[in-house]
């Protein structure tokens, strides 16, 4: 394919909604899902005379994100007006940042097929979201809901360092994970708290100059981004092969059709006439505050994965899964440390715990089985006091009742019976009930031991200690 002569060059602009209670410049709720225009006020409706006042939480979350992305956080940054007309942009301008943004010069590490790679982050800046325009709700009309107008965003702009759609996907996944760890956003493309615009160009391999870039928008999943990039790259390569020029355009991705079509943008019609926002003073962050922000950054995914690999003998797939979210990995680690058995903890967390979360829909911090409780259960099993099968039953009861493992085991009589007299009684019954297998086993068919153990386990309702049953059977058979 002609694509092999060319190299894909990709930069991504990601908009992330910050998880604040109120909007960036007014006290209206930033919550999702309220009735249309229920969360509005003179400020976010842009009524005459209303003025913006900055939300300190938005500054905190934006700053944390910038620091976690390795950026230099600037002690002074300036808000600017980006002027354009659109019905869900009530002021006719968006308060954003232009030539003096909050942070610059960061980087994000991604895993590629050829190993680790650093993707540069040009800048992180603060801005406000616009409202929503619904074009198909009422025929002939566009319905405007300004609940989202004024919700705080950060825009994260990468350097054009990505060279494939896979790298772009890896960047987005890493970025998302870091932001989740920081708890600064829900970062959900489906819900709109994370949006991606891609800039892509093609150049001959080995060429230094960048090709003309196009902008691709309207993707609503990470895989959508990857497919859109591949599509556009192929289109550009085909044009270049024919000796044609690439026009600087904006294209909209159509996921259903699997193609990007040109949005008819007039050349030069986007003159945003940026100037410093006169209704706000510059954002000044003092040294102490910046240090507090830096200190508040939790262990980030890359570091955590490294540490898990060193401290716990679990597989890299397990590490990947367990570090996917801060709360999950905190839970796992707590259980692992308390029980002293990371492997078991990993299994339980990725198995029963995850299943319980999926079924009940509760969040991890609402789950009744706390890490210490799980650790206790793990210890009971490891010490042979309950069987693994019983363990699952105990876990289920723990979820329901919130009672500790040992208590549930006792209450439900699930403690393994290691008492020889009881075991002997069951063994005798099994031998009576299964004379054929028992006879052959006792005559020397050792491979039937497992079957007989199984019968004993069934008869005991899972409570018999299989190890001891094996021992007793063996001594019956006369073996050692």
């Amino acid at each position, binding site marked *: 394919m002609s694509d092999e002569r060319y190299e894909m060059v990709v930069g991504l602009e990601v908009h992330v909604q910050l998880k604040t209670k109120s909007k960036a410049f007014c006290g209206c709720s930033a919550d999702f899902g309220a009735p249309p225009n229920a969360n509005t006020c003179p400020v976010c409706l842009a009524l005459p*005379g209303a003025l913006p006042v900055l939300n300190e939480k938005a500054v905190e979350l934006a700053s944390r994100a910038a620091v976690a992305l390795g950026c230099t956080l600037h002690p002074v940054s300036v808000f600017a007006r980006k002027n354009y007309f659109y019905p869900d942009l009530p002021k006719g301008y968006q308060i954003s940042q232009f030539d003096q943004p909050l942070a610059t010069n960061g980087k994000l590490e991604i895993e590629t097929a050829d190993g680790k790679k650093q993707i540069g982050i040009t800048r992180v800046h603060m801005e406000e979201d616009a409202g929503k325009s619904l074009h198909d709700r009422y025929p002939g009309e566009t319905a405007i809901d300004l609940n989202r107008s004024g919700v705080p965003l950060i825009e994260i702009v990468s350097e054009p360092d990505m060279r494939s759609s896979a790298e772009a996907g890896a960047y987005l996944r890493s970025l998302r994970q870091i932001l989740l760890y920081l708890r600064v956003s829900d970062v959900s493309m489906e819900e709109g708290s994370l949006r991606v615009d891609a800039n892509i160009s093609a150049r001959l391999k080995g060429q230094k100059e960048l090709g003309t870039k196009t902008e691709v928008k309207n993707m609503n999943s990470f895989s959508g981004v990857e497919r859109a990039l591949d599509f556009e790259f192929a289109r550009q390569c085909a044009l270049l092969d024919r000796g044609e020029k690439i026009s600087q355009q904006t294209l909209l991705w159509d996921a259903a059709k699997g193609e990007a079509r040109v949005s008819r943008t007039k050349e030069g019609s986007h003159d945003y006439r940026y100037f410093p926002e*006169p209704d706000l003073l510059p954002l000044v962050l003092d040294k102490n505050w910046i240090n507090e922000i830096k200190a508040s950054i939790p262990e980030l995914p890359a570091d955590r994965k490294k540490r898990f690999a060193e401290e716990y003998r679990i597989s890299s797939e397990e590490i990947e899964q367990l570090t996917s979210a801060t709360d999950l990995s905190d839970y796992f680690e707590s259980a692992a440390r308390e029980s002293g058995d990371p492997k078991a903890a990993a299994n339980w967390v990725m198995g029963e715990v995850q299943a319980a979360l999926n079924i009940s829909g509760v969040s991890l911090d609402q789950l009744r089985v706390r890490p210490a409780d799980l650790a206790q259960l793990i210890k009971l099993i490891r010490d042979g006091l309950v069987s693994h099968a019983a363990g699952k039953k105990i876990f289920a009861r723990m979820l329901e009742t919130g009672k500790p493992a040992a208590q549930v085991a006792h209450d439900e009589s699930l403690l393994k019976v290691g008492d020889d007299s009881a075991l002997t009684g069951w063994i005798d019954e099994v031998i009576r009930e299964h004379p054929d297998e028992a006879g052959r086993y006792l005559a020397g068919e050792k491979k039937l031991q497992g079957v007989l153990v199984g019968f004993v386990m069934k008869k005991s309702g899972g409570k018999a200690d299989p190890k001891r049953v094996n021992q007793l059977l063996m001594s019956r058979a006369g073996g050692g």
Partner: protein
Amino acid sequence: MSITNFGSLSAVALSARVGSGDLVPADTVAASFDTADAVSAGRDGLNLILWSNRELALRDASSLAEGMAKAGKGGLLAGVPLAVKDNIATLGLPTTCASKILAGYVSPYEATAIIRLREEGAIVVAKTNMDEFAMGSSTENSAYGPAHNPHDVRRVTGGSSGGSAAAVAAGIVPIALGSETGGSVRQPAAFCGIVGVKPTYGRVSRHGLVAFASSLDQIGTMARNVDDAALTMEIMSGLDPFDSTSSSAPVGGYRDQYMSLATNPAPLEGMKIGVPAEYFPENLDPGIRQLCLRSVDALKSLGAKVIDVKMPQTPLAIPVYYIVAPAEASSNLARFDGVRYGFRSEEASTLSELYSITRSEGFGPEVTRRILLGTYVLSAGYYDAYYKKAQAVRALITRDFGAVFGDGVDALFTPTTPTTAFPIGGITDPYEMYLSDIFTVTANLAGVPAMSLPIGRVGGLPVGGQIIAPHFGEAAMFRVAYALESALGQEAHQ
């Protein structure tokens, strides 16, 4: 009960009488409305008042009376009728900025300045005529027609706060609110023979003031005497959490100083007053020059040392202003699009037309001109040469003030305007109109407080003298003004 000489009673005096029970708020409201009728302040007369509602005002008056009865006392402006420029948000009466694009708009929230005045007992009785969106120097740019100067109805009131200035001059209200971006309180105050004050930028909250040029706008007070203007200003001043540009500087007792010096024969002893040469150009009207010199003599006799000073960047002020203000305005007026409030053109059949037809029909020619100018100077390729350059020159103008005030000068004295009130329709060239702001605009650009007070008449028309003080130097400014006002006495109105 009807109030004798209502039209010349000060706000302080009225408030005292209402506070003591001598008058009830309903009386002052009635007197105000009756005076408005008597002078034909409405649309078919002087055209000073755009919106008023007697029943609404009387209802406010009776609520006030109830409140006073419960509290056992009245506020500092108890029962004082207040006229408000139509670009300041009030509940009850419309806020249209004298523009078709806001026809019928009643604000669902009120400006902080209004809230604070109401808390002291003031009653809003009228929204006054103005140049559309505060863009103008004559109140001829109103969608509702020009306002007429009570001193000579063929002449302009000045602008953009012309309606408010004239309402005070005509005796309809003792105090009124205007707004300043380039002299829009001081200039009409000078033309109408009253006191007009612009505070330090950030002194009074802009929450509820419809924005024209955000880095220049301030609400100002207008009254027939310095004390009323100072009192009203003091009540409105102070930090407002709803305005990020409002200052946390403490509001110092503006009246204490001059009150304590009231009986002192040399109340300006120890003060140095600068007279900048640039405000007395060769071609200054000789009558105005004469009155200014008379005032300077009065200042000397009050104990002040008067010296000549230089403010060389002064001639650049108009060009700077007419780049910065329209630029910010072009952005501030983008929200008037027919979507969420105000006028929406019926002619439009697409969204695109909704914007362009609404805005073209809704805005008058001066507003359109300034939006185009402002958009141009911000547009790609011109931003650096125009807006950015103008802001840099603005900093130089501010430095001029800093240099003079830093050199021990406590206040400056200048004429307020280069001419007296000109005839309605007398100036048609836009740039010539802009030049009426030549002495006032510098204070807006630098953000320093400035005020105008009557210093005499030329050809029977009022002339204003201007006092400019350093940032947050309102106390010094009022001190000089109060003393000068007393010294001039009735001569200021002759």
